[in-house]
């Protein structure tokens, strides 16, 4: 059985960095808009530095994503099996989607 089914931590890290850099830019723009308060100066530069991720946190995030996908497929598979069909289709995914989104 192939056990190569984990996410690539680098890929997840790249996506995280993209989101964080985007948010850091937004924060810069927002602070540029109300740059009247000089006191905010020191705090502003701290906030604008993007966030970093710990290696273990990345591995854990990969695991979380893997569980997300596994759960989605597993729950849809249960419904497909109950119907006696051999292929997972849109209708199966539809039915498990609300609970999946609530759980995650």
């Amino acid at each position, binding site marked *: 059985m192939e056990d190569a089914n984990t996410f690539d931590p680098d890929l997840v890290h790249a996506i995280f960095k993209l989101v964080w850099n985007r948010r850091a830019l937004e924060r810069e723009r927002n602070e540029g808009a109300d740059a009247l308060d000089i006191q905010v100066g020191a705090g502003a530069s701290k906030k604008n530095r993007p966030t970093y991720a710990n290696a273990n946190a990345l591995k854990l995030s990969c695991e979380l994503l893997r569980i997300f996908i596994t759960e989605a497929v597993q729950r849809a*598979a249960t419904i497909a099996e109950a119907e006696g069909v051999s292929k997972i289709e849109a209708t199966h995914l539809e039915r498990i989607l609300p609970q999946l989104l609530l759980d995650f």
Partner: protein
Amino acid sequence: MEADGAGSDVEREDESVIELLRDRFRLLTISIAEAQAKRNDLEISLPIAACIADLAFKYTEQLAKDLELFAQHASRKSINMEDVILSAHRNEHLATSLRSFGTDLKSKEAQSERKRKKPSRKEDKATTSVVHIPDN
């Protein structure tokens, strides 16, 4: 005017980077989904697997935002394992399984650190007995 032009260039670059990441993500997700379906002796239709992939991608973006907020809330600049476990708070089973995975990771790290320290001490003893190395 000029600033806007530079901003939209950065955005366009961002778009292509996002597309690349999304494609890699899609491939990985589809392989995980197909493997999972096989374990139930089922097949998964490709557009549905792609749908799950896009959903997972959006979830990842949301996760990044949540993790950043948690770390900021704790006055930290970097994400740690507690933040990830916290983001799974909506489902008890999920949180528990993540927590045990995290503990495993920590204990594996501690083990590999201990292994690294032991051989280096042995090497030091061996070399000092054979060759006279000046102390640093």
